[in-house]
């Protein structure tokens, strides 16, 4: 047949690396931040085994001792090992950060997608509700939720705190996902699915949802960083994790404020931990966005 196209296979990416290797090759900064994230996750999971001291053990023989070989990051006013507390704090940060970001982003994605799909009055109602939530700054909204829900600790983790961090994330994510869903909805392949007479649920699940996964993943990584920061903020304000549970934000508050001139390691090391976590998740999110964007693929 004269109209048979000449179909030379095209090479797009080196396939030998696998997805992870390709990511590391294209996004070295992202790969580095991914390593930091993995180390923090491992620290959180293995905290009781890898930390040199018990995070809660009080040692009156070594109050406020500066960093040394015995105490890598020094000790606090109760003689507790700061380095061990930071490792344990990673567990708190990861559990609260991951679960509240996941909860908030998923809730926001469902709300945003529903808003776009149904349109009309549903859209208007959801968006006005979102407008109200967006009128509050993130921290203020979280404070309100904490104040209303009180404390509900389960296995040492405060469920109310997770919700307090998740709820302010919802409106922001729902806006982004709604915009993305509206764009996808206007694509000709959705029209093609409609002309094929497919059902609404099929169009939503099979044709729209997979195309919203990318913005969702990007929002998720970005908001994990936000959630960790918010948890630290709330703990610092005394509304988050309670003593004696080790948490990075908490370590900056209380008597650390009294001693930070004489014992700066009390604020420096938890501060580094918070910054590192936030920067790592943000950079990873950026790298993931670039990696998943087909327009940026060579």
């Amino acid at each position: 047949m004269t109209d048979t196209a000449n179909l030379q296979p095209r090479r797009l990416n080196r396939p030998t690396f696998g997805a992870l290797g390709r990511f590391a090759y294209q996004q070295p900064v992202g790969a580095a931040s991914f390593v930091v994230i993995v180390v923090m996750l491992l620290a959180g999971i293995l905290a009781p085994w890898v930390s040199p001291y018990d995070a809660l053990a009080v040692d009156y023989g070594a109050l406020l001792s500066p960093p040394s070989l015995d105490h890598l990051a020094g000790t606090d006013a109760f003689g507790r090992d700061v380095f061990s507390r930071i490792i344990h704090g990673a567990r708190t940060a990861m559990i609260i950060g991951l679960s509240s970001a996941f909860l908030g982003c998923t809730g926001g994605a469902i709300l945003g997608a529903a808003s776009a799909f149904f349109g009309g009055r549903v859209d208007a109602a959801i968006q006005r509700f979102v407008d109200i939530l967006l009128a509050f700054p993130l921290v203020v909204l979280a404070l309100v939720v904490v104040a209303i829900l009180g404390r509900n600790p389960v296995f040492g983790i405060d469920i109310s705190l997770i919700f307090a961090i998740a709820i302010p994330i919802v409106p922001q994510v729902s806006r982004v996902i709604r915009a993305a869903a509206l764009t996808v909805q206007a694509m000709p392949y959705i029209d093609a699915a409609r002309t094929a007479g497919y059902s609404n649920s099929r169009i939503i699940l099979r044709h729209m949802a997979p195309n919203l996964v990318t913005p969702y993943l990007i929002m998720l990584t970005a908001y994990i960083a936000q959630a960790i920061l918010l948890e630290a903020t709330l703990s610092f304000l005394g509304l988050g994790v309670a003593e004696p549970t080790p948490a990075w934000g908490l370590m900056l508050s209380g008597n650390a404020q009294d001693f930070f001139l004489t014992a700066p390691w009390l604020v420096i090391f938890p501060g580094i931990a918070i910054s590192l976590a936030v920067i790592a998740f943000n950079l990873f999110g950026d790298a993931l966005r670039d990696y998943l964007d087909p327009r940026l693929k060579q």
Partner: protein
Amino acid sequence: MNGPAPELLRVEDLSVEFGGRLRAVDGVGFTVKAGETLAVVGESGSGKSVTALSLMRLLPEGVGRYASGRVSFDGKDLLDLSPGEMEKLRGQDIAMIFQEPMTSLNPILTIGFQIMEPLRIHLGLTGAQARARAVELLGLVGISDAERRLDQYPHQFSGGMRQRVMIAIGLACDPKLIIADEPTTALDVTIQAQILELMKDLSRRLDIALILITHNLGIVARYADRVAVMYAARIVESGTAEAVFARPRHPYTMGLLRSVPRLDRARQTRLATIEGLPPDLANAPSGCRFAPRCPFAIASCAEPPHLSETDTGGLSACHRWEEIAAGTIREVPAEPAPARLLAADGPKEIMRLEKLSKTFEVGRGIGRKPGIVRAVEQVSLSVGEGETLGLVGESGCGKSTLGRLILGLEEPTSGTIAFEGKDITAAPPAERRRLRRDIQVIFQDPFSSLNPRMTVGSIVEEPLKVYGLRKGARARGERVRELLDQVGLRADMAERYPHQLSGGQRQRVGIARALAMEPRFIVCDEAVSALDVSIQGQIINLLERLQAELGLTFLFIAHDLAVVRHISTRVAVMYLGRVMEIADRDAIYAEPLHPYTKVLLDAAPVPDPEIEKTRAPRIVNGDLPSPLSPPPGCVFHTRCPIATEECRGIIPEPREIRPGHFAACIKVEAQP
């Protein structure tokens, strides 16, 4: 012209590399004389735009690198100039006009500011002087009421007007050379003619050389003095427009000219096509780059050919140009067109639209009265089984909306759509779902009409699954292979994702997806408009073959009159939501009745310089009226060359002027 004009620009052995390995421009050389128009033609990815950008030294810093070459302009070597000197040259001696008039003007600055800016910077004019010159420039590019319009913003101008403003900016400092990169590709055909006539006229009057970069061979034939044809980053042929069109000496040029559907010729044969795809520049063949697609390729084509002077005075990069010139090697004539499955006593009617209208509300808000766009207005037409109805018109004429109404993607405001005698719009949901299968679509943009997250196989298989057309995974896999084969794709393409395919291949997947439903009626909405000429021919032939094999009926929506002439059996012309004229294809092209159809046909250039010289293009004035406030009476009267006072008052109904030939114009006399 008196005596040979001095040489203005000489490009020698210019090579540009991207990322250190991909040569987007490879050893390109040409000259431009003062006041002359050089057209650079080529398909997408052939390096024509990169050539233009590299002349201006506008390649993105750190991405593009000049591997070799000299660009002498007016005695200076542009590649040796300092960035500061280059800045002075740009906009002053060389101006550039881009494709997208919608985005190349800054939306927050007035038109006046943007025209005066180069005058102030390059010529050091004061405010009042600059303003006077800006008024003069707007007059020069045909914008009336210049004094007032200087204070307006780009959004208050139409696309064609914006392109005029871009030209005015380009002209501001009396340049010696204007580089126009696809200046009219984004514009409608009547506006395209206005802009190109203006550019040609200005170039003659002000003695400005013009480099016109385009993929449209008709434009080249009408406006160029000389032509350079690019293929895969190299120039393969150059010469005077007459020589290149009448006596091409390179197989690629020959193929290109033969694969363009012609507006001025009745169709007897299938379109000739150039087989295959252009090479990937990252690993281009070492010899002649066209050899893998060339019908005349021989062993020595593995050696890279050099541009050598031919009998026509041009240059050709083909080892066998002498044989082409002598006529000893010739292309095989195109196959005859496939016979159509039309019944002897006229086709049976399959689709009938009766007084179909669709209006949209726009700008609705709290306390705001919405505007009404009449996208489709009182359209009545019928389509016979096995025929192809071509639907042409400029952007915003409602042709795509009409297609969407038939597909059920929009609900009509009033009127009926009957498919095989049954009204689709009134049918119960179950019936509609069944009818949906019979009416399928092929979209314009092969990049966005396939779900990027699904493989080719699952895209084609989905309808089989949903409608239970084949039971079991094996039977479905079998059918997918069959469908892919039918559209000329290899079975192993099923595992690929859309982004791994070329534009033409994607369009084939879109066709296979439509065929999977076993439809009887297919709406082709600009199905070949986004494709390069050589690929476009392949897809048109495929559609025609499928129509003959499967007895399909097509509604072929397009703005390209030549393509419509080639593929259609009947043609309907739309303007501002209304049908202006319907007739058999040959009748409408040979003897158009409606003034709008005449204007459209005149505006479209034909790829033959000899014919173009004899045609005096009739330029239709003005812009398309906004569909928000269509003119009263006949919607075309504001631009119509023969309109009178009477036309303002009467909305003309389509009348049968000749048997089977309808026109909606009160000025057309009934003919026997």
